[in-house]
């Protein structure tokens, strides 16, 4: 008994609900014996990790589901001790190297070396390689990525890598070319509806179709969120009432309110207010690019046709700057200021046209 998300997570490739063709490809890969390095990418909540886990199970059998958490220690060349927690089974090890910040290079090299230096004991029944799963590869530092590319080739005999990330844009081409890219796109609204209905059926609940659609829409094609929302609705009120609003996360509401504030008034004073709210969002660990995206989405709704292009262009510009910079607040604020200027000009022109 646990959350529906965990409870009804498919454990084998055969049980996957969508992207079945891709699942078939994966199975063929496994059966073929020569398993390549994988680079799994796609938006959050699309089922990347689920697929990785299913693939591993396909490779090694149910033994991979016996997981344990281990703390590994590494020492940097400058004698600094690093500690990182890994999740591993007998056949694979999963680690998020970006947890250790800019020392991720050491972790990657040492970890893969450790894993690859030990051969599988019983190669007759098992595969003759282990798997290292690296998550959030897009947050890896450049030097870590460069360190990875040689390591990948060197230990090919005993070790395969499965890299997992949201976007490949921050993965260096050298690594992309060494891996088989596997894009896991977000499930469509229909697929989500389907899954919600089946889950509810298994739970012994009846989910009205409108309700399922509503939840799927709200979730933004994020299956994890959809399931959680659905379960939250179920806890709050059962039987489901399609008229009732699906509760959203607080940060989304907060972000929307912020956008409204920006659209209401354009002045330095308001910018100061907005800054406070941006800080609030940032301190709640909402990633700055998510904030930028959310703001843009909300702000575009008040924009006129030709203004949209300009706003989007500026948003892209400041988002890029954001990635290059250090402190997100400057860039978010700069975008807000820019929007204010554009919007104000637009309003003034509108008034001038009236007279």
């Amino acid at each position: 008994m646990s959350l529906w998300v965990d409870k009804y997570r498919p454990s084998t490739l055969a049980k996957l609900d969508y992207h079945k063709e891709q699942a078939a490809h994966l199975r063929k890969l496994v059966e073929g014996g020569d398993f390549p390095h994988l680079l799994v990418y796609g938006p959050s909540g699309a089922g990347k990790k689920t697929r990785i886990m299913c693939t591993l199970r396909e490779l090694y059998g149910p033994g991979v589901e016996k997981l344990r958490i281990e703390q590994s220690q590494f020492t940097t060349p400058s004698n600094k001790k690093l500690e990182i927690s890994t999740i591993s089974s007998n056949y694979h090890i999963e680690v998020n190297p970006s947890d250790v910040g800019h020392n991720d290079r050491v972790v990657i090299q040492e970890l893969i070396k450790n894993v690859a230096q030990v051969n599988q004991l019983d190669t007759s029944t098992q595969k003759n390689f282990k798997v290292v799963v690296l998550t959030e590869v897009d947050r890896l530092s450049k030097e870590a990525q460069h360190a990875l590319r040689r390591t990948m080739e060197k230990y090919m005999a005993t070790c395969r890598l499965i890299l997992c990330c949201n976007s490949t844009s921050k993965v260096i081409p050298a690594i992309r070319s060494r891996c088989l890219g596997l894009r896991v796109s977000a499930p469509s609204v229909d697929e989500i509806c389907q899954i919600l209905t089946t889950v509810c059926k298994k739970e012994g609940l009846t989910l009205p179709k409108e309700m399922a659609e509503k939840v799927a829409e709200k979730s933004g094609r994020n299956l994890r969120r959809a399931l959680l929302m659905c379960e939250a609705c179920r806890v709050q009120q059962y039987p489901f009432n399609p008229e009732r609003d699906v509760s959203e996360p607080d940060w989304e509401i907060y972000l929307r309110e912020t956008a409204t504030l920006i659209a209401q008034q354009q002045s330095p004073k308001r910018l100061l207010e907005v800054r406070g709210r941006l800080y609030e969002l940032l301190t709640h660990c909402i990633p700055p690019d998510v904030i930028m995206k959310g703001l843009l989405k909300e702000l575009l709704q008040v924009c006129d046709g030709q203004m949209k292009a300009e706003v989007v262009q500026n948003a892209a510009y400041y988002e890029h700057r954001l990635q290059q910079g250090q402190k997100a607040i400057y860039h978010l604020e700069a975008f807000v200021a820019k929007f204010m200027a554009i919007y104000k000009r637009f309003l003034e022109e509108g008034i001038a046209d009236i007279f």
Partner: protein
Amino acid sequence: MDDSFELEYADELDALDIVNDEELVPPSYNSRPKSKRSLQFATPKADKNQNTTNDATVDEDDFRELTNYGHTLSSSPDLELEDSNARNRKRVQSSPGMEEDEVDGISCDDTSSNLTSNKRPRFSEEVQCEKDSAVSSVDAAVEFIRQSRGHKGSQSANSAAASQSVVKDDLTRPKVFKRIPRGDFISTLGYEGQRVYMQLWDEDVLESEFSSYEKDSRPLSLLPTPVCIMREQIEDQHTRKVLEEASEVHRDVRRQMEAMEDDGTIGNAVDDEVDNLSEELKSLWVEKYAPRRYTELLSEESINRSLLHWLKLWDYVVFGKDVPKPMKQGMNKFKKDKEKEMTAKNKKFFSEVAEQLDKHHRPEQKIALLCGPPGLGKTTLAHIVAKHAGYNVVEMNASDDRSVDVFRNKLESATQMKAVMGADPKPNCLVIDEIDGAPSPAINVLLNLIKKTDKDTATSDKKKKKKEGDLLLRPIICVCNDQYVPALRQLRQMALILNFPQTESSKLACRLHEVVKVERLKADLNALLALCERTDNDIRSCLNTLQFVRQSNKELTLRDVQTMSVGQKDSQKSLFSLWNDVFTMPRPKKNRFLSIQDLSEGKQDTLQMNNISPSARFQHILTLCQAAGEADRVMQGIHENYLDAKAKDPHLIGLNIANDWLCFADCLNHYIASNQDYSVLKFSSFLPVTFHFLYAAYNPSRVQFPHGQFEAKQKHQKTINLLTSLLCDMTPITQKFTNSTNLTLDLLSPMLDILQPTLRPVNTQLYSSKEKEELSNVVNIMIAYNMTYHQEKSPEGQYVYALDPNVEEVIKFPGLKQRKQLTYGAKQMIAREISLEKMRRAEQALNKDNGKRKVLPATNSTPGKKKPGPAVPNHLQKLEAKNIVPQKATVNFFGNLVRTKREKPQTKNAVEEEAKQDKSKKELLDTVIWFHFKEGFSNAVRRSVKVQDLL
């Protein structure tokens, strides 16, 4: 030969032609037809029989006789005409740019006449060569130069007349020529059917002619100059007069003052010391003109008195005199009187010096701390006052070693020893200079010395006599620039702090003037005042500058001071003042020191405006920032304050520029940090400059210290910590599928809803099976995600259950509606269920472990010996009963059946293996005395009870 000759002398000959023309027909200018007629004889019926004899005819003519050219022309007119024609044509070809007026050609400009005078000799030379080649060329040249000069004189006279005539009747000058004129022309037929030529004039030439004509003509207005110009002139005259008078007065005053100085009316203490100029250049003026006596001090009177008063409070301890009683042995009467007066005053006005003495009759404040910017005379004051009060000054400064040991040594020797040599041994007074640079351990030594004495006196009277030696019985004066150095924090609490204000400019300038006079450097008071201002009244800097000037020249003018870059310190200002400067528009500072020369030259405006001109503002802010360093902090301060600044920015353009700059600076910082490339750090100083130009105002709002970013960072760190603590103890399978981003964005918010089912506030026993299921679901989820409820005491004194880790804080935003909360009872129940469930699981895990190790305890049962199982921890081992007791279904304390897991060894193999192991053990055990402790074991009292038995 001919061609070149013609080419070279074309101008000349042309000019001559025209002279002839004019002289030939002077009246003909008035009437055009007549002039034409006069030129009639030169018809264009040119024969082609030109020969060298033509040259000969010309040779024959003296240049002086050229006036008779006309007559000679009559002899061979055709040839001559032909010649000139050819010349003209040539000339047009060779130098079309050199257009010359047909008429003004006579008064051709200097360059051309020079040209002719230079060239003529050669021409004549040739001529001479043909005539008689015996004459030396040099002589001929000289002669012809002379001739040409003479000719030129007549020519210029001629030209003057001609030009006059031209001016008079310019419009009537010949427009029609019989000959082909120079330049462009049109040919046409005259009245009588003869061919005439009209010259085509260039537009420029005409225009310049018109303008020159206009110049000479009388203006249209009645007065020769307009009224406004006249007025200006009058004013100009007036101001000049005034300025002259002023400078006269100024000069008079200076003369008088100099006279006075020479008379020696202004007496001076240091006057007598200076005799020789060469000698004086050897020593630094700063040393030389340092005050020698208390009365010569330049620092503020109140400060001086406070310090002196404080020092006098030590009199009882040091000299054994009564404090208020003025003293002293080696002092003159005048000083005594003054002393009295001062102490009296002191008591009235300066309460900061604590009057009361402690047990040992020492003043409350054991040390004095003088602080202020450099060059105000702090050290000098300390020395003078200490000397004045009858002490022997011992100085320690930054140049000394200030390690703890050395510091202590010095401190003790200075405060406890006394000079025995010398006729009049004085007690020591320690002056610690530049204490803000001392390491904090050294300062702690000083602190201890001060504190220790206090403690000793408090603890025991007996020891007092013995410890008396350790007491601080001598005054210590500390000098520092920055009193807020962290190391000085504690010291400040027990010190008399004397903050040095800036010396008054006038006072300082007066002193400088005295110095200058002695040193025979010419400098007026104005310049000195300006110098004081330049250096922020830094006495040392002023004197050094003056000495520097004296080395090179004998005068210091106001201009020097203003243009000099000497005397400027690379002073670091506080961040606050920097931020203030960024947001404040500088007010035009009136330059108080204007010299008369500047006034007369009208430089008044530039001098007045120079501190508010954009470039000056730019430079000012830029230098400030570069001096301040801490680019990141500066940027933060600006970022937090710029939105409060009052600036007119209706289109938010400035706002965008500002933000772009912030982004740029941020990217720069990131680049520096990631690449360790500090060469681009210099660009960060330009950010404040931009903000200054965008947001500077005359009345800026108060600058707030930036803590927004810091607070945000702290909060962020707190959230991260919460998430990490949540993540690290999750069950592996849940941890695998979550990360912190997922948690905040998707998971936590709905999960908290899920974790709050409606639970009836009754005992769990009474729950229906469905409710139980719900409850167990919640418990399972919470365990899987490593959450529980934790009792806390709220600030109001109520007990509440809060999530632990409190992830609610992670997802809660201010201003949004509160999440529905479970009741206290429900939370309590859940918390209890969670802990029970955790225990159950732990038990299960333990059972599993025990099951695995089942064999081990059994094998231990070999009698008489107890071999510790290698894997079983010590505490478990103790609790296990031995096999000595016969295995029955045991009953525990409460009479319940207890299953024991120990079983007898079943397998033979196991026994045999054990036996083998035992043998080796035995060997080991036989060697030494083996003592087995059996006593005190009682199954009835100690027994392992499993949690599951109690549940």
